């Protein structure tokens, strides 16, 4: 599967064609589903969504966001970020860019969630896992 798509291509794309998503991408999309975020806010949100298990590296985040933007799942936001009260180290106002999830992104996220839910269902039906194991 080609990794990069132009936005025109993406607009025509079916959400299912993006599946399965990288777990890290799922986290990012989930984080953005609550509203626009900038880089640091996104890292923290992904961390809290994963109970602290996933810490996205800032450079990697940038790389992934570029890819998601290219694929049309995420866009740079026009509105202000949800989190804006983080003090920066040197006191000057940091240069931030906010990101938001696109309609396609939401659809892909929904499709991926459904796919995962179905998988979990199958696993549970076959006694492969019970929530208390975790």
């Amino acid at each position, binding site marked *: 599967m080609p990794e990069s798509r132009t936005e025109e*291509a993406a607009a025509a794309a079916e959400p299912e064609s993006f599946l399965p998503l990288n777990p890290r991408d799922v986290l990012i999309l989930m984080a953005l589903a609550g509203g626009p975020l900038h*880089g640091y806010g996104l890292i923290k949100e992904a961390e809290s969504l994963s109970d602290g298990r996933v810490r996205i590296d800032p450079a990697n985040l940038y790389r992934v966001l570029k890819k998601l933007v290219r694929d049309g799942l995420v866009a740079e936001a026009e509105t202000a970020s949800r989190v804006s009260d983080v003090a920066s180290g040197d006191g000057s106002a940091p240069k931030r860019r906010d990101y938001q999830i696109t309609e396609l992104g939401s659809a892909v996220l929904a499709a991926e969630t459904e796919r995962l839910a179905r998988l979990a269902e199958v696993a549970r039906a076959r006694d492969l896992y019970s929530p208390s194991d975790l």
Partner: protein
Amino acid sequence: MRAALSSGGGAAAMRRREAATTRVYRLTLRALPGELAAGAEEIATSYDELAAEARRSAGRQGEWSLLSRSLVGLLVCVTKERFERRRTERETARGLAVGAGDRHHRSKRGPVDMLLEDVRHSLRSLRRQPRFALGVVLLVALGVGAVTAVFSAVDGVLLRALPYPQADRLVFFGSPAHSGPKLEDWSTRLTAVDRLGAAWVETVALTGVGAPQRVREGSVSEGFFDLFGARPALGRLLVEGDFAPGSRVVVLAHSLWQSQFGAERDIVGRAITVDGVPLDVVGVLERGFLEPEALTGDRVDLWVALDRSQPVLTERNVHVLQVAGRLAEGTSLEAAQEELDALSSMLAEEFPGPETDREGNPREVPLQSLHEATVDQAGSALTLLLGAVGAMLLISCANVASLALARVSDRGRELSLRSALGASRARVGSLLLIESLLLAIAGGILGLGFAWIALDLFRRFAPAGIPRLDEVAVDFRVIVFAFALSLLTGLLFGVAPALRSARADVALALREQSTGPTRSRQRLRGALVVVQVALALALSVGSALLFHSFLRLRAVELGFEPERVVRLHLQHGQFGDDQERIDRRLQLADALLEEVAALPGVEGAAFGWSLPFDHVGGSRCCWRTRFVDSAVPVEEAESRGEDSMVNPVTPDFFRVLGVPVLEGRALVAADRDSEPPAVVLNRELADRLFPQGAAVGSLVRMGREQSLQVVGVVADFKAWGLDQESGAAAFLPYERFGGRLPTLSLAVRSSLPLAQLAESLRRTVWQLDPDLPIDSIVELEQRISSSIATPRFYSALLLVFAAMAMALAAAGIYGSLLFAVGQRVREMGVRMALGAARGNVVRLIVGQGLMLVAIGLGLGLLASLAGGRVLEARLFEVAPNDPLAMAVASGVLIAVSLLACWVPARRAAATNPVETLRAD
């Protein structure tokens, strides 16, 4: 995480540091190729906020670990990005992708791209000469690995702050121990020290859980846990009420809780039996708490409150407490020492006698930083090792440099061609530098692996007595150190060839046959050989000195026969004067001796309060008092008496240990009731008390009044270590004087195998008293051998280093001469064509090599004369300029060098003059 940071550091310093990590990250980002550099500003903004958060939650350490993580993250990103871009490009080329990403990165060739190209080129060129690359990597790994291993030990043991709050202000009250009243004086009258913590560690019996056990119990003062920042893992630590007389509570060490109580959480509230007394467990110490070894000496298993009302702690002349304190804010160690000295003088006036020494001077207490008191002599040992591995690293570097030099000469034509084709000298030089840095980094990584293994071995085989060894690990600091070291190494040996190539004469080198090595190049290579030989000799002399000293130590005359004697240490309760306890102990001892002596295979058994090598080292345990000839009036006893160790023993003591009785007789069973009590002196004490002889039959006074009759004199024997004097010793009937003693050692002479004997000894003891803990049962010879474990360890280690250094130096000589021979093939051909015999050629080459070796030996001998003094404190009956050690070390080195010279010389002599000249 261990607090390795000093707590000071103002806000300004914080800001500077904060800027440092962020700046490093930003600079790295900007230097990167491709898309990431374009997004640098945005990435850095997120990074800033993460860094601010890390700083808030984990301080400077958190900040640096974020930096290291993020730099790795960057590296991963760059790799992934390149990989993806290539794939996209391939797909574009095949016409598969609809639209390839932007391509501005290809048009822009940043410094990083140039660097990458140089790296690729260097890798290709190294791949063509795998033996050279492998050799260099191994050499660097060896040097860096050894230094890194020792550095991590030095770092963990010496450099790192102790893991206690405000560790830099903790001080230790030196010289041997202190009395209870003195602690009281200090805590009420010293202002320079605002908190005090005292500890008294004893061995006690823990019964009721499995087999009875000897464990170490620390009685600590109120401020102790607070001073060292201890926290409970379970329950609580000691609180004020616990220090009331009669309180019976105990805090368990984490390790004891796990090993003896299965880490059961309901331990708090339960009672355990210590020395027959039930104590309530109120808490368990946290896992990471490290005892302050200067105070406790070793691990402590149980912690109880110091009961200051007990007799031992109310007497001014009973010294059992080890004390540490924290300097008041803004007070220097010197100021505190001054105040303490003044207080000591005042106390000396108030309490002449207990607070003065024999001349009436105040007993002064030296203050020392706790860190210094903890690492003590381990420092000198580790510094010694660091010196040794440092020398090894230098030898490796010199070796690598001469390898690299030879390689440049080999590649002279290729490099000159590059220059001729337009490459600047700087670029050719940087190519070589990159090559050596690449090798150095590879060597560094491998070296780190070596260090990890070496450190593991070191921890496993290191003798007891190196404090804080548990804290030692290959961690972030050590890794940074190893990399810095290997980069430095890379520069060190990369510089020589780089400089050389920058000077290379293009025209000269391009000619088909260059005219052979230039003078300066030869001289540089020669100097490298000299350096290697000198360093190898210095190391070898050092190891020969230590080894010689170790052999001397082993050859020491013991004065007794330890073969087939097994020792067992028994613990039967704390000091106690009541008659009932005394009677019980004596009965037990009697019964035990009888039963053990009757065991099949046992030739003899005897008790003593202590046996030879029970306590090893300069400090003397356990009973030391003054003896004087009874004919001397009491008032002169002070000046004419002799201090001596006192050891209550049973009649067979000397026979079992094989100590010859020189005059009179040994103690006998009848001595338990004889009046005055009998005493046996050793040769030294007898000679000192009765210089005219005739000790046997005389009366002596022990202490102030106890009168004793000398019944015999025995030979001196080593009891405190092979390197210690035997000293004066007196032996009293155990039955008369041993009942008050809390411990005793049993010596058993037997031809039975140790395991079998140990089994029946244990059974016998536990039949008589199932609650008696038994220390390990060991052979006396084993104890003697482990008493010299430290010198054995260091001499073996240095021997290994010296052997490696010698091998490296030999490899250096060999390589260097081989290369010189290769360069002079034509000359040899001409010489032989003109009638030189093969022998002459061999002599020429060997002579050339030996010349360098001789200079190196001279320098090395000078270095070891200067450096020998470092070893002086570790040498036993061997002078630091011991001619034997120097001769042996030089001899071996000369022999090895000769071999290293001879092989290339043979090769030179094998030159076929006709073929060589024909090729011209």
